[in-house]
């Protein structure tokens, strides 16, 4: 029931709407109709007429203006009452014609005015453009002038900076030069002072040397006067020990070339022989072998030390000067060599020298001789730039070791018996292998080598530059340089 009622309500509402619409339509239609009616009567009928009227009015006004203008000009001719009608009519016609012509002229003039106006506008426009360009150019000019000013300003600043820098440079140059001069002066001063110091040092050293020599001489004189008596078997007193290094020093210093048969050697020889025999007793049988192979180095204890005063035996041994004298370490042999190119062997018996043999083979004078440790081989260095090697049972050299470029001043056996060390005037020290007769090592020495002494691994060489040098034969490098006084 409610649903039906609602439906009916809706339907009635729709009906009402339609009704209202219809009524709405009716009054609206009425209004529209009324408006149209009104317009028809009030507007439409009159519109055209009034528009046409207005047009005519305008045209008549225009004509009135034109006729006024013409009449104004034409008013000079007064129209008298006596003039006939025809003339007036003709005048009227003429005026009409002129009216037409003038109207035409008016149109033409209006056209010309239009054209002139357009030309004027064009020129205006062009002028405006030109003005604009001018403004633009002026602005550019202004900006360029500004830039020019800026650049000149910048230039001025730079120039000022440059000037100041130049001045600074000058000043620094000046100071540099002054400093350099001062430096040079100071250097010279320094050198001078150093020279002075060196001279002073030299004089001081000379004085010291002289003083030492003088004192030594005095000591030697006193020592020479003292006689020391020693038992053969006893160990020497410490005083003799101290004396020996000094005597060695003296020996070395006075002359290298002179080896004298001093008082010290015979007791040493005696001792060594005795020891050998003792050993033989201990050993027993192998006599001959032990002599050969024994590498035992007898440690000689210096039993007595004395400066030789008088010669025991004087003998004319060689035709020319003797350069080298050497005792053999094992037998009683003495070898002498000299400028006459030969080595003579002497036996020392009871203070007398007896000739035993000669070793030839050298082409020039002999400078040094050395016996090896067994006493059966001799190595000699000679002026003919070679070192020669003899066996005592043969007078001709077994080996000649050549390789030096100048005279060989010293040749010594190295402890290993296979190797020989030679020192030469060509500023080298060479180590030779006897079995191959070839040089194993060459040591550049920098100065005229005059003598060589070698031990297990160390070679000592004496040089003309007042230095002795120690060499490590393993490394062939100079381990020590000892500058000495004298030559």
């Amino acid at each position: 029931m409610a649903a039906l009622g609602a439906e009916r309500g809706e339907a009635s509402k729709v009906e009402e709407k339609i009704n209202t619409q219809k009524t709405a339509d009716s009054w609206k239609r009425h209004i529209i109709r009324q408006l149209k009616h009104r317009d028809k009567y009030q507007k439409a009928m009159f519109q055209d007429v009034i528009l046409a009227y207005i047009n005519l009015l305008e045209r008549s006004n225009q004509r009135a203006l034109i006729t006024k203008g013409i009449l104004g000009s034409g008013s000079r001719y007064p129209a008298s009452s006596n003039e006939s009608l025809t003339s007036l009519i003709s005048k009227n016609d003429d005026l009409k014609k002129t009216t037409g012509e003038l109207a035409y002229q008016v149109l033409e003039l209006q056209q010309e005015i239009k054209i002139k106006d357009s030309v004027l506008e064009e020129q205006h426009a062009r002028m405006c453009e030109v003005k604009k360009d001018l403004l633009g150019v002026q602005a550019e000019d202004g900006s360029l002038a500004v830039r020019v000013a800026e650049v000149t300003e910048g230039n001025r600043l730079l120039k000022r900076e440059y000037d100041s820098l130049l001045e600074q440079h000058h000043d620094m140059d000046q100071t540099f030069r002054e400093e350099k001069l001062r430096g040079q002066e100071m250097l010279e001063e320094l050198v001078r002072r150093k020279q002075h110091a060196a001279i002073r040092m030299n004089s001081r050293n000379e004085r010291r040397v002289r003083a030492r020599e003088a004192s030594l001489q005095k000591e030697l004189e006193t020592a020479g006067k003292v006689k020391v008596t020693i038992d053969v078997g006893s160990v020497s007193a410490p005083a003799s020990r101290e004396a020996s290094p000094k005597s060695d020093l003296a020996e070395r210093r006075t002359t290298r070339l002179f080896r004298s048969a001093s008082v010290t050697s015979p007791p040493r020889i005696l001792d060594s022989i005795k020891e050998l025999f003792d050993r033989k007793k201990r050993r027993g049988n192998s006599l001959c072998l032990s002599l050969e192979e024994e590498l035992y180095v007898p440690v000689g204890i210096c039993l007595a030390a004395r400066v030789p005063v008088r010669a025991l035996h004087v003998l004319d041994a060689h035709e020319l000067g003797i350069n080298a004298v050497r005792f053999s370490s094992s037998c009683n042999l003495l070898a002498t060599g000299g400028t006459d190119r030969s080595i003579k062997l002497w036996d020392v018996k009871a203070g007398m020298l007896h000739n035993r043999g000669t070793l030839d083979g050298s082409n020039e004078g002999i400078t040094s001789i050395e016996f090896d440790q067994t006493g059966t081989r001799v190595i000699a260095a000679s002026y003919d730039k070679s070192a020669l090697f003899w066996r005592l049972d043969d007078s001709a050299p077994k080996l000649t070791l050549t390789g030096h470029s100048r005279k060989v001043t010293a040749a010594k056996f190295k402890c290993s018996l296979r190797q020989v060390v030679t020192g030469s005037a060509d500023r080298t020290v060479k180590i030779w292998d006897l079995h191959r007769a070839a040089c194993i090592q060459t040591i550049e020495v920098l100065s005229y080598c005059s003598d060589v002494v070698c031990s297990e691994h160390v070679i000592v060489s004496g040089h003309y530059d007042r230095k002795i040098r120690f060499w490590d034969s393993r490394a062939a490098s100079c381990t020590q340089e000892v500058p000495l006084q004298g030559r």
Partner: protein
Amino acid sequence: MADDKDVLRDVWFGRIPTCFTLYQDEITEREAEPFYLLLPRMSYLTLVTDKVKKHFLKVMKAEDIEEMWFDFEGTSLKWHYPIGLLFDLHASNTALPWSITVHFKNFPERDLLHCPSNSVIEAHFMSSIKEADALKHKSQVINDMQKKDHKQLWMGLQNVVLCSSDKFDQFWAMNRKLMEYPTEEGGFRYIPFRIYLTMSDRPFIQKLFRPISPDGHTHTLGDLLKEVYPVAIPNDDESKHYQVVIHGIEPLLETPLQWLSEHLSHPDNFLHISVIPAPSD
């Protein structure tokens, strides 16, 4: 609705053929010819009569010109009433064209307002619009508009003389906003209307009147008249004494007031209703 648009256009482009005659007591150099013009119903007298002035100035001396004013059969025509209203009120049932007399002297100070320039007309027009919007929307819509929108309204009216439709569109583009109302209300808050009477001391009747009754019933023109000026509505057995004229037509009394306000208002958004004595033949 297309019908509504047609109504708007017809209302906007309404014209009255008028003949302006110079008052014979005015001093002229020559005889002044009458000037015919189709006046727009929507505009105001002083806005559209420049040509009239120019026409009559040709025959008068400059020193005799004062402010121009018009009258019709002795009644000075108030320029601040729309032309259509003036015609409906004074000359509805007279012969067309409407003959207006042009005066240049003896301005009736007590009857007419001076109109020195168009800005005075603009001020009057804008104030009417604002008053109407105050009644319709509590001034919200008109206050939301910018100054340029107000100008557009005025420009649209100014050019109503020209029979071009784009001025119509220009005006209604803005005026449309003033004709809107929130849908839940069903209409404006109050209807802006004025009822003009020929025989009365007061110039017009203006009262607050709602378009929708409290019980949802839409008010009609008849309801309005019954409420405000019941004399205008004849009783059933009496003949019609008065005509209720809007824009030169008599709408039916059933016409809804809201629709009337939307479509038959003048540009100043007011419903100007004339109640004139019915013609007796």
